[in-house]
Every structure is written in structure tokens, then in C-alpha cells.
């Protein structure tokens, strides 16, 4: 390290690794109840992680949640952008993941045809 600029460059590179431990941007929440897992939630999760890695979306958090009672619509996947409504997508398949991330997570356009619920941000 030769200068303060070097330090800043290194810091910016390393910072993303720790974002998880601070409050940060968009959250993707995947239903991981027994029903969800049976419907393929793990595969959806894997697809989400792959897609995020491919797009270098390091400040997107991926969380799981348990069964919320719409078992027939599993796999359920929520997208929660800061300051916006929490959108729940139903019957998500791994192949849908790319579309949801590209349109909603990145560009803020809700993929309306897959939405099964919406909770307004208070």
C-alpha cells in the first residue's frame, strides 16, 4: 500500500464482503417452509445466489422465512426494496429468477404477472 488512495481502493473492494452485517439495500426473502422446500425452494435459492453473483449484486441480502400459509403457491419469493412495498411472487421456478432480479431487483419494475401479494411499506 503506497498511498491513501490505495487504501480506499482496497476498502471499496473489501467492503462488500461485510455488507451483510450492516443494514443495507434490497432483500430477497425465500419461503423455506417444508412446503417451500418440497416445491423446490432450495433450487430457487441456488438460482438466486448464482444470479446475484453473476451480476455482482453484492448489496442484495438473501433471507429465508418459514411457511406463511399459501402453501399451494410455493415457492414464494419476496422482494423488498428500501422504501418500497414488499412484493411476494408465487410459484417461482428457478428459471423465473433471472427475470425477477433483472426487472425488479435491478430496475425496480415489478413482474406483475407473478405477484401474489403486496404489503405496503409503512
Amino acid at each position, binding site marked *: 500500500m503506497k*498511498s491513501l488512495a490505495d487504501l480506499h481502493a482496497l476498502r471499496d473492494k473489501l*467492503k462488500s*464482503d461485510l455488507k*451483510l452485517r450492516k443494514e443495507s439495500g434490497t432483500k430477497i426473502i425465500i419461503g*423455506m417452509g417444508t412446503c417451500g422446500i418440497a416445491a423446490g425452494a432450495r433450487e430457487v435459492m441456488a438460482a438466486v445466489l448464482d444470479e446475484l453473483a453473476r451480476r455482482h449484486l453484492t448489496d442484495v*441480502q438473501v*433471507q429465508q422465512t*418459514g411457511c406463511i400459509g399459501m402453501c399451494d403457491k410455493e415457492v414464494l419469493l419476496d422482494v423488498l426494496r428500501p422504501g418500497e412495498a414488499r412484493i411476494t411472487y408465487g410459484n417461482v421456478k428457478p428459471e423465473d429468477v433471472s427475470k425477477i432480479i433483472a426487472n425488479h431487483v435491478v430496475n425496480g419494475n415489478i413482474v406483475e404477472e407473478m405477484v401474489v401479494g403486496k404489503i405496503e411499506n409503512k
Partner: protein
Amino acid sequence: MQHIRAHVLVCGGTACKSSGSQKVRDAFARYLEEYKLQDEVMLVETGCHGFCEHGPLVIVYPEGTFYCRVTADDVKEIVEQHLYKGRIVERLLYREPLTQEQVPNYDEIGFYKKQHRIVLANCGEIDPENVGEYIAVGGYEALGKALTQMSPEQVVEEVKKSGLRGRGGGGFPTGLKWQFAKASVSDKKYVICNADEGDPGAFMDRSVLEGDPHRVLEGMAICGYAIGADEGYIYVRAEYPLAIKRLRVAIAQAEEAGLLGRNIFGSGFDFTIHIKEGAGAFVCGEETALMASIEGKRGMPRPRPPFPAVSGLWGKPTNINNVETFANVAQIINNGAEWYSRFGTEKSKGTKVFALTGKINNTGLAEVPMGITMREIIYDIGGGITNGKKFKAVQIGGPSGGCLPESMLDLPVDYDSLIAAGAMMGSGGLVVMDEDTCMVDVAKFFLTFTQSESCGKCTPCREGTKRMLEILTRITEGEGREGDIELLESLAENIKATALCGLGQSAPNPVLSTLRYFRHEYEEHIKNKRCPAGACEKMLSYIIGDDCKGCTKCARNCPVQAISGAVKQKHVIDQSKCIKCGACMAGCPFKAITKG
């Protein structure tokens, strides 16, 4: 590269390690692999979170779920339920001691809610053996800023303006100390970090060194730049092997990264840091004794002046601060003196880390803004007294400090209020005592400590504390004499006025403060030969009451045949033979034996 969706932070502080955190960590590694989560969940070993009573601690991010007292057997459940299925393992959550309410999140726990973590900000949050994590959270930014954008004068000025005072006990203004060392003209100067934490029960410095070693290195380097020193020593007790190991790793990584060594940040400033292990003599925390010890001599204090800023290590100007003091420096440089001086009181700025121990529910480390009341620390953060007992006193400042009674609970905790109350900040050890504690016994405990840790150099400390201890001992053994209190006071005042170093000058404080607030307890011991707290064994007698059924068990248990009585008749204890071991009472099936 895989997207990491969760971090599992396992505490690797000394306390958690001793309660099994290494096994927990290993179990996580095994089960993450078993559930094929190893590529999406990162396992991190951190330093201490300060909540040692509840360790080993595990925090899972991004949720921030805080699991307490985790054993290796719990790990499979956490991996399967939480990390795989997203269900919090509720039985491992923290419960508030007063409400029994479960609290899933780290920052909502009462213990942490009132804390304000500057010094401990990274402890438990980053991997102390990875300089990258420290850099990622803004580490070494302050050093860079100081070296490239500030003059040494400006650095000293900023530290002065911040109002930071020495966290090792004395509370001397840090910036002023730096200014003195800077003003000394010499071809060579030194920076010393005093990590010879010795107060019984205090472990904040160890936690910082274990959990965030780079913060201390950065503070020392900034100090070196400010005063014109190119070499630093960390004097750390050999009883802190983990701290020493992490410091070694940190120094090596910082040198590797060019953050220590020659021409740091291209500024032309050189700074190297050595570790010197001490053997743990309490007096070596005194700065002149500490320097003697680094020089390879017997750790004995020498008179000041000359102060270390003029003639310190090997006769060269030296600035010496303790771990917690250095740990504040980077934040002050980064955020400015004004930001820092917003915390605390008019004369005691910033935060202070306290080590809570004793009869308190949440033992551990708490960093709070100066000026918070003792009541907030003990009840809001500490969760109150264990077993629903009544609060009696809090001892603050270790062997140099004093005991404060309930009436002082609303005292704002800052340097000057504590001194006025007859205690002192010390390094921040807080020992909470309940109604079962005898205050004469407490004074005796601390005097025993100082007497055995006295270096023996000056007469008042060597001989005087011995005589004080003898008087206290006879008081607790029912041999107290009329006039003993006055004798103690006279001796205490003389020792305070004449001892050579801080250890001796403050040694009488535990006696003086208990005499000030609990004089009646001394009088009870002396006049009525009674220990009101029922703690002084030699003053107790065991008595067999009317519930005795004559089962003979106590007589058989007594190791000195002090109990006699016929079968099915009430037994009697011969008090002249009784050695007060308590075996009779412990074994009585009818609870017929009482002590008092």
C-alpha cells in the same frame, strides 16, 4: 464467485473459547458442509462481544440473530433450522433476566441497547485475524488521514480538543500527554501501549486486543506520528496468550500491507511495533515500573518527575497510554474532535468500557457514554442483582477504587464525580455486591491484593498496607479493638500522602470508602463481634435448633467431634471445638442447624 447470503459469527474471545467456542466453530464447519451451505454461508471467528456470561455466542447475519450459550450439540439445529430453513432457534435466544422475554436481535437486547460502542465497535463484528475486514469497516483511514492531510500539531490538537482522557485509571488528558512528549527534543522517542491489565475482574483491554487489534496498532501509529516516535512497544501480560497471538498476526499483516513499517502511505513516516510480554505483576501497570520491566529490570516504579514524556524508556521521551485510550484515537481522527466530544460530560468526554462482574445478571463488557448513572449500568445494562437479592454496593476502580453504596447509584459515572465520591474510574472494573457481602471483608480482599502486589520499594506501601491488612483481618476475626477504625484512618491517610506510586497512594481507597459509607459495619464487627452480612466465618456460630430429631448425622459429619448428643435427642455443638466448616449444616436432613 458465489453470492454469500449469510455470515455466522462465532465468538473467539478468551471467555467464549474457555466455554467451548472452538468446538462450536468446528461443528459449524462440519454441518455447513453436510447441508452443502459452505459456499453461501461464511463462517467467521470474531473477538469478544462482551456478553461473556452468555457465551459461547453466535450471531447470524443478515438477520442479526443472537444465540447464547451455544454448544456443539446445538449447531446442527442452527444450521438445519436457521440457515437451511430460515427458522430462528428460539430456545437459544437471549432472555431478558427481568421480563424473561426472548430477544432475537443483537441490538435489541437490554445489555446492548444502552451501550454506545466506539471502542468495541468492531469487537465481535469482524475477524480480528483478517486485516481486510478491519480495512473494510474503515480501518487505517484515520492513520492515512493523519499522515497525508494533517500535521503532527494538528493531530495533537485534535486529540486535545476531543477531551479524551487516559482510560487506564488516572484520567490524565491524552492530548496534553502527547503534547508534552512532542515538545521533548530527542533523536529517539517511543510510544508504549500499556496492556498490563491487572485490576481484578477487568478485561476490556484484553477484549479489544483480541477482537480488534488493528485499532490499537492504528492508534499507536497515529500517536507516533504526532509525537515524532518511530518505534512502539505493547507491554502485554503473558497471561493473555490469545491477545498476544492476535497482535502478532495483526502486526505481521499490517507490515505486509505497508500500514506499519517504513514510509507509511508514502508519507516518509516510519513506525514499527514490538510486543513485550510481562509476567503479570500488578505494579507493572504503573508506567515507570512498566518501562523498567521493558528495559529488563525489576518492575519497580521510580519517582516522577522526570515524567516519561521527558525521560522514559531508555531515558528517551516516551508517551504511554493504555489499550482503550489508543483504541479511541482512530475514531477521533476520522470523525473529528467535535463528534467525539458530543459523548460524555463536560469534563469526561467519550465512552468508557466497564467490566461488569459480581452479583449481577449480565456480567460482561459494556461501553457507555460517560455520565451515565451507575443505576443504568447495573439495572438497565447489567439486568439487576442475581437471585433477586438486594443491592448493597458497587466496587469501581479495582484495588485503587472504592465501594459506593445504594445512595450513590444515581451518581453520574465520570472521572471527577467518582473521585469526589471516594472511588475512581480505574480501568473500569465494576464489581456488584449484594446484601450477603461484608464490606470489611471486601476491604480486606483488596488490601490482600495490594499488599501481595506491592513492589516493596517504599515504606508506606510495603509496611503500611501490611499493618492495615492485619487490622482488617483481626476485625473480621472478631478480634477488633476499640480505636482500630481511627488507626486505619490515620494509616490510610498517611499512606495516601506518602506512597511513591499510584499503587500505594490509592491502596487505602477500598478501606477509606467502605469506612465512609459502611462505617457501622466496622463498628458492628468491633463492638458487637458480629458480621451483619453473615460473611465473616470466624464470627459465626452454628447452632442446632429445636427441629433437631437426634438423627446423629451432624455428629458423624463433624470432622472435629464438636457435636454431641444421644440418639433421638437434640444435639449440641461445642463452640470451643467448632472450626466453622459448615459440614453439619450442609448435611442436616431437617434443616435444624442455622448459622448466625
